[in-house]
Each structure stands twice: as C-alpha cells, then as structure tokens.
C-alpha cells in the first residue's frame, strides 16, 4: 500500500522486538468474538491512485461547477475570484500539515499568520480584538449570542427577521439546550429593513440583538440606530456579516456601535466548496471583554533571547484547561481557511478590497437595473451592496429550477430559506460579484424573461 512504509520484513522484525507473534495478537484486548479477522465485509479493497482519481472525477462531473454557468447565487456563500497564489501558498506542506501551534518555537509561521489575520479582521470589522477564527459564520453567530448572555447575565435574544434563517436556526437549536429565550420574527418585505420594528422588540431583559449587515434580502440596516436602542436597554448589539467584501464599501460595524461582530469569511480566499470548510470571524469592540471570548487567540510575546514571537494565549478560557467551565467547547479553529483569507486580504490591501467592493457594487447596480426591466419583475431593495431581492408573481423556487434547466444558476428562492412563510415565496435573491460578466447578466435577464409565465 503506497501510504504504508512498513515492509513485511520490517513487520516481522518489529513483532519480534515486541514479543508478539502477529499484529492480530496485539489486539488481544478486543473480545475475540468481536474482533474482525479480515477486511470489513461489503467494502471494496485498496485501489490505485489512478482508479480513485477516475472515480472521484466522475463524481465531480455530476456537479455543475459555477464557472460553467452564469452564476448569481449568494445567500451566505459568495463566489469571488481567488488569486492562484493563495492556493499555492496554503499547499505549502509546512502550513498544510502542521498541527495546532501548541509548540510555538516551531510554529511561528502559523502563529504570526494568525496574529496578522486577527489584526486584519479587527480592522475590517472596526473592532479592537478578533479571534483566530471559528468553524463558520453560523456557529460564530451562536457563540456571540452565548457570549452576550454570559456578559450581560441575561437570557433573551432578539433576532432580526432578516437574519440568515440558517443562522437563526442554529441559534434556536443551541438555545434549546442552554435555555436562552429566542425572540425571532419573519422578515418584512419592505424596501428598507424594518429597524424600528426590531428596536421595539428590545426590552430590559434583552441580552443581545442580532442584526445581519447587509441582511438576507440584501438590504442595509441602520446599525447605529439599533446600537443606540440596544445599549439604552443594556443589551449588546451583535452584527452578523456574511459577505466581507461588502465591508470594503460599507462602514465597519464596529464603528457603528456594534459590540460583537461575527461573520462568514469564506468569500475571501476559501471558495464555495458546497458549504464547507468555511471560516467564522469573531471580533469585539471592547477589549476588556476579551476573557469572555470564545475560540483561540494568538498574542505577541518574546522568547528567551528577547526576540519577538507569537503564542496562543489566554487559553485558560478553553476546554482543555477549564474542562466543563470553558467558555465554549470549541477546540478547533479553521486555521487553513484563515490562512487563505489572510493571504487574499494581503493581496488586496486597502486599495484592493475597496476596488473589489466597488466592482461588485457596480455590476450589481447594472444587474438590478437590467432585471427591473424584465416584465413581471420588481426590485425590492432601496439599498444593497452586491445582493438584492426580486419580487416575482410566482414561486421563485420553480423559476430557479427552470433557470437551472437552461444552464443559468439564477439565485435563491426565498421559499427555500423561509419555507414557512407563504408571503416570501415570490422573492428571488440575486447576487452579483465580480465573477459575473455583462453577458452573464444579459443571459440571466433574457432567460428569466423566457421562464417567467
């Protein structure tokens, strides 16, 4: 077997040294009636690299890759062009095959990268401190809710109706076990988000208010106004961002009163990957709360010779030290995705992220204007970044399927996201990034015209 360096000669010599007659004999502690004397039945035996590659290629070809179709899907996962150098660098064996940097003397590569990553996220979010990443945006969102409840010692969580429903569902699932009280609502089909409606739901028992920015319909809420209202009631404002590129153009949440900013980092460096692995971002504006943060943190220090170096720090918050008293049970970050994000962000810099955001917005404006001209289509949004909602007279889910049959990946029907709310069925969420060409936009418009009844 190509991955196993021991030869039969080696095995014989080692068994002799160990004093065992066979490898099977080393498993003597397994009850003999349960021990398997040969390969598990019903499964194939080992295969050549060529055969496995062929098999996996055959599976991959059963998928329609985004590059092979005009592509307008977003809703929490965004397709951006990832520079080739990102993927090259994350495949360096020293990054790819390293463990969590618990031995900092031989892990400065990962550690310095994480310090840089934390700094980049903090600046993008307008926050004081960011952690070294979490599983994804949805789990980061829940961790933010849990942290706010810990900090405020309150249990009521007000969710904006326009929070990504999968994120809301994760929060609801977890809250069942922690006994937090979740106050959700349905999104209103208005050109601007119903910030006032949200504010009226904040009360003195509220631990946190969770708002998505831009929201699941692509609209941009007035964070400062919501922050002021939340703070007046002693609640924390948690801002969720699923599209970091938007923050190249929009004011940072941390500058608008957010207490905790969390989000999905996938859009930069990581790729779509059918949903994972992704990359949760987590940052706070008040550095005094850092000991209440979940997840790994990398900090600067010096070595015995006085040289600058980096280590994982404040790990007394974590489960391998605190066990049942940990701030979270999380013990993995999304290191390689954080690296990809950080490299992409380094390649962009301030100029690049701003320009990329501008290009996304420019194309989205063109698309919105063009699609508004399709008969039977109205654009809901008054404001948006690179994602907006079309209102159709029919169930948008069927339209999405019809578009796909014609080779166009046209967006997400709101009925898929909010299956319980009949009034949202006509909504079609369309996302336009720099990967869409003007021809793609035109194809979407004309195909939409074809498939609309």
């Amino acid at each position: 077997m190509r991955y196993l360096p021991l030869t039969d000669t080696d095995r014989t010599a080692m068994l002799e040294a160990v004093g065992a007659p066979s490898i099977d004999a080393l498993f003597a502690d397994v009850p003999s009636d349960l021990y398997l004397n040969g390969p598990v039945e019903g499964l194939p035996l080992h295969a050549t690299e060529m055969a496995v590659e062929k098999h996996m290629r055959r599976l991959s070809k059963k998928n329609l890759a985004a590059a092979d179709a005009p592509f307008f899907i977003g809703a929490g996962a965004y397709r951006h062009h990832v520079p080739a150098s990102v993927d090259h660098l994350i495949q360096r064996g020293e990054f790819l095959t390293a463990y969590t940097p618990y031995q900092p003397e031989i892990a400065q590569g990962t550690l310095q990268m994480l310090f840089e990553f934390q700094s980049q996220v903090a600046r993008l979010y307008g926050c004081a401190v960011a952690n070294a990443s979490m599983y994804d945006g949805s789990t980061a969102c829940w961790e933010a809710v849990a942290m706010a409840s810990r900090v405020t010692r309150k249990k009521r969580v007000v969710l904006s109706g326009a929070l990504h429903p999968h994120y809301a569902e994760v929060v609801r699932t977890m809250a069942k076990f922690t006994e937090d009280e979740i106050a959700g609502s349905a999104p209103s089909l208005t050109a601007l988000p119903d910030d006032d409606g949200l504010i009226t739901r904040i009360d003195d028992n509220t631990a946190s208010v969770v708002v998505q920015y831009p929201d699941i319909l692509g609209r941009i809420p007035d964070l400062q106004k919501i922050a002021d209202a939340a703070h007046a009631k002693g609640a924390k404002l948690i801002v969720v961002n699923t599209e970091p590129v938007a923050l190249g153009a929009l004011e940072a949440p941390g500058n608008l009163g957010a207490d905790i900013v969390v989000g999905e980092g996938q859009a930069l460096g990581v790729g779509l990957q059918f949903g994972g692995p992704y990359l949760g971002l987590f940052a706070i504006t008040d550095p005094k709360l850092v000991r209440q943060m979940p997840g790994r943190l990398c900090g600067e220090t010096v070595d015995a010779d006085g040289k600058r170096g980096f280590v994982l720090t404040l790990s007394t918050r974590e489960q391998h030290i605190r066990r049942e008293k940990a701030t979270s049970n999380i013990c993995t970050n999304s290191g390689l995705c954080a690296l990809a994000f950080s490299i992409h962000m380094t390649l962009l810099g301030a100029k690049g992220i701003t320009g990329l955001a501008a290009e996304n917005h420019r194309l989205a404006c063109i698309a919105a204007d063009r699609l508004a001209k399709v008969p039977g289509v109205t654009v809901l949004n008054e404001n948006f970044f690179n994602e907006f909602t079309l209102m159709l007279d029919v169930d948008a889910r069927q339209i999405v399927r019809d578009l796909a049959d014609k080779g166009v990946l046209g967006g997400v029907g709101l009925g898929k996201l909010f299956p319980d709310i009949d009034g949202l069925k006509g909504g079609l969420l369309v996302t336009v990034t720099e990967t869409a060409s003007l021809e793609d936009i035109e194809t979407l418009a004309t195909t939409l015209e074809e498939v609309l009844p």
Partner: protein
Amino acid sequence: LEEALIFEIGDADTYGVDLPYTPTDLPGRMGKFTRKGEIGLPGLSEPQTVRHYTRLSRQNYGIDLGFFPLGSCTMKHNPRLNEKVARMPGFLDVHPMQPIDTVQGALGVIDELAHWLITLTGMQSVAMSPKAGAHGELCGILCIRAALEARGDARKVVLVPESAHGTNPATAAFAGYSTEDIPANKDGRVDLDALKARLGPDVAAVMITNPNTCGLFERDMKAISDAVHEAGGLVYCDGANFNAIMGRVRPGDLGIDAMHINLHKTFSTPHGGGGPGSGPVVLSEALAPFAPLPFVEKAKDGSLRLIEEENMEEHHASTFGRMTAFNGQMGMFTRALTYILSHGADGLRQAAGDAVLNANYILRQLEDVLHAPFGASGPCMHEALFGDAGFAEGFSTLDLAKGLIDEGFHPMTMYFPLVVHGAMLIEPTETESKAGIDQFIMAMRSLAQRAKDGDEALLTAPHHAPRARLDEAHAARKPRLAWSEPEG
C-alpha cells in the same frame, strides 16, 4: 529567520490583485452607509506576498518535514491525491444552495462516505454536518439529550473518565448536563464495578474514549455499554482514537450509541495548523432519528436529496435542529473519501495494524529508560504512554519535549492524560517507517538519559529552532492581540 509583519512591510497603496474598476464615485445604492475613514489594511504585491508566506511557512514544522508523535492527534501523512481531488472544479466551485439536480456528485460524495463510515463502525446512520471533533461530540450529546427528552426522561448526569479529553466535560456541560468522574483501575482502564455502582436513573450517558487516552483498549467496553443501557442511559464514545481499531473491531458491536469521527485524524484530512476539522457522528438505531439537519437521502428514483427545513417529511420530525449553516465540511469529505477508497477495507485494517505495531515497538524499546505506567497492562493500542518518574530534580517532561525539537522531531503530547505524572503520549501512526522510528527511539533514549542525568542544556532547549522558549506568561499578562502602530 525573522520575517516582518504585513503591517510593517505593506501599505495602503500596494496591492497584488488587479481590478477592472477604480472607485471614483461609489454610487448611492448603499445609502448613507458607505465607509468614511481609512480601512487600515496593508497590501502587498504578488511577489512580496508569495515571499512573505513562503518565508513564514519555513518557521513551521509539519508532517511533511518529519515525525509528529503527537498522541491523541493522529498526525498521519496527508496524501496529495486528496488535495488534487478536493480542487476539482466540480467540488471546489459548487454553491451549497445550487438546485439539487446540479449537485448530485457532491451529494454522492456525502452518501458514499456515509456508507463507509456506517459500515466501518457497524452503526445505523451518520450525521455528517458537524464541523470538527468537538462539534461532533456536541452533536452526539445533543442527540442523546433529544432521545431522552423524547421519552420524557430528564436525566441530568454524564459520567466521564478521569482520563478523558477536556472537550468531553465541556460538551456535556454545554448540553446542560453535570459531569462526574469515573475512576480508573490500576490497569489504566475504566473501573467497571465503580461505574456500575454509580449508574442509576439520573445518569443520562457515559462518555468513553476507546481506545482510551492511556493508549489502551477498554476490554470491558461491551459490558460497560450493556450496563449503561440496562440503567436506561446511552453510551457516547469519543472517536479520536478510531485509527487504532478501524477495520479491526466495530464500535457498534461494542454497544456504542454515538461516536464522532475526526476526519482530520483518522482519515488524513490535513490539520492545517489548527483546522478545519470535520466530525461526522455515527449513531445507533436509538439515536438515528434525532440527527440534525441537513442530511442526504436517496429518493425512490435513485437521485439524492438534501433534507432541510424546506423539505422535511414526517419521518424527519425528530431532528434536534441544525448545527451549521450549510452541508458540513464538504472539502474534507472529498479528501476523506479519497483516502478511504485508496486504502480500501484491507488497507484501512492494515493501517490500524501498523499504527498499533509501531506504538508497541516504541513502548518496548523505551520502557527500560522511561517509566511506562501501564507497560505491564499488555499491548498498547496506537499510542505509547510514559511518565516523568526518575528525571533529575528540576527536569520535566517539557524539557524533554523541547529537547526533541533540537533532534528534529515534533514533541509528543505532554501532560495528558492527567492521570499520569508528566505524561508523554506518543502516537507514531502508520505513517512512520521503521528507520524513522528507530531514529526517534535513539533520540528519546538519549534525551531520557540527559533528563535523568540533569543535563542543564536541556533546560533551555530548543537551541536549533526559529525561536527559543517563548514567554507565555508575558503574552497573557497584557495581551497584545492585534497589531498597532508603534508608539512614538
């Protein structure tokens, strides 16, 4: 070997990505919310970027460079085919919300991997979405809680062995349980009688690691499971050490109800300097109905469907909810499936055997110079455990571990499990060659001797690493967690 920070070498005018459009007049569709101030992110050109990260990488140690005997972490070779497959456009460039007809291959990967995991473990089903081992643990415990609640059973205690991973009690606590320790016997295994004595109507579950963190197979596992079941509880198994037994014994046959599988340990998806992980949870018949959304199901016409809130049917109604936004760690599934298909049922079984043989070889070649607390308990599984007994005054496991760096190896797991003083937990996996292991043994013998002799140089090791020992207390005292302009 010094490499400056991007904030020190980059600036706001430099970039490594060309853009077709220069923002001169960001238009008004973003209302009043456009960014006002400087964003403060440094940019580098592509050549500078490649150099920065290439240089940084060289300050890291990885399996690609050498032996990584990190007990309980299963640092094995990451085949390059896996990386190639994960980058096929049909896997890399597919959106989680594409119409289901356009992602049948992706669902096929999930379905095929699920089949392997279920068959290898002898279980009923598998929840694929958990993002990492601890997330998988949580999933398992939440399934248990949901199952107990479904039968109206409000048990409140979870039993955990002293030697358990820290995540176990953390997870149980998160799920609303109080935890109690299960004692170990002198052998290093769970004390069956003590466990039985503690079982009762308040015990929701036991969480057991098998092979356990002392590197031993829990001989009484089946008896434990039976006893727990009889007392109305459920059995969670921490699957971190599944690499030792895959293809040799099926956890389902041991009576286990839920076990997470670390794809990044057992099935070779890269650790990546701390993630991403992937923690599917195999489930017994008792727990299968409670698994979280989404999951893949085969329709009558043979096509694959993704069951979510949108299309749940009556038989999905017991799900405890949703743990993550999308479909789990697809990129890890493609890698793990590639690894599994490469090995096949015979190769996986051989890998487990080689891993165990390697560990026993290390145990027997070192037990004359290092204290092996359970050396007499019979063969170990995939890891060999030693303690610091006999070291000279002032010399610790940490010193030996840092000395190992100078010998060209990554240190072993230290001070875990907690049940052994100065524990050194060594897991060679099946990846190491005999020649490589022999070198390691030589280095360990020499270091053990130096620790016993009190060789002062060991106290300041490593001497040949990119950094000398780092001051962790300094880092925690006044945390500096983000870059800021130097003052003055």
